[in-house]
């Protein structure tokens, strides 16, 4: 084995370095694949983190709640035209993003709590 590697190093240095580099890269991505799969298979990590680029309807879809509920929580009427992101809404209403996100989280928790009591006979 060592002799083979030595021969490669002597005669095909560039190829050997390339091979080692791509092998390292493969193992790196494999580790990432395993850690990402483990992380996301944990139910506690499956809820999306609300962030500025999201539209209220997208958040509603992610959390499987009624979009109108979220528009109510934000106290914001979806005007026709292009959809607004949470940051747009923060800018036009003069509120901060964390504030809006907290309001949405509260509304979602309330909706979920209601849903779980409804499902109990």
């Amino acid at each position: 084995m060592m002799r083979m590697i030595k021969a490669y190093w002597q005669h095909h240095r560039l190829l050997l370095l390339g091979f080692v580099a791509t092998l390292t890269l493969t193992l790196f991505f494999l580790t990432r694949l395993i850690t990402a799969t483990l992380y996301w298979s944990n139910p506690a990590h499956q809820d999306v983190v609300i962030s500025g680029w999201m539209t209220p309807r997208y958040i509603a879809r992610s959390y499987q709640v009624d979009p109108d509920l979220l528009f109510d929580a934000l106290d914001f009427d979806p005007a026709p035209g292009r959809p607004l992101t949470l940051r747009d809404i923060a800018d036009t209403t003069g509120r901060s993003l964390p504030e809006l996100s907290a309001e949405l989280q509260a509304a979602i928790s309330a909706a979920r709590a209601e849903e779980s009591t409804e499902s109990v006979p």
Partner: protein
Amino acid sequence: MTEQLLALIPVYGFWLLLGVTFLSCLALPIPASIVMLTAGGLSASGDLGLWQAASGALIGAVLGDQTGFALGRSGGTALIGRLRANPSRAPLIDRATGLLQTRGMLGVFLSRWLFSPLGPWLNFASGAAAMSWPRFTLAGISGEVVWVTLYVGLGFGFADSIAALSQIGGALSGVLAAGLLTIGLGYVLHRATHDRLARHQDAH
């Protein structure tokens, strides 16, 4: 940076997707897969037209492929000529260009979606190796249809798991592309040693 890009999707829809896939097909570091997944998710929630997202991504990708191919053809042919000037390298270069001319279609098709990190490089290489343009275009368009349908479709179907999809998908395509390169280089290394030993024996 990704966040700012994602925030532009509901604003510029079709044109943003077109620009993103176009640039990513030219090997620029643009997170095209997460943009397509997010566009699919926004379509599912009703904030973006699904056809708008998919057609923008597809047109951008096809135009990007064509641009890469043209760049390879105009600049790469001379580069290949220079590389061939070294007699020890010439057989390898000939084998690679021959492979692209005969089996290039499968490579182009698979590098659009299954080994997508390799896609842009294959565009340049196909142009440089003077692969036939209709064959490149046919394989390229069919591969891009799979790529766009896969990512926009997954985003649409699993709008609540886009972060998970993009991380797992990104790692998976990294494993596939780097793994394929490793196998390829391992094979070339093996062949090169084999050829050297054969020459060595002939000399005796």
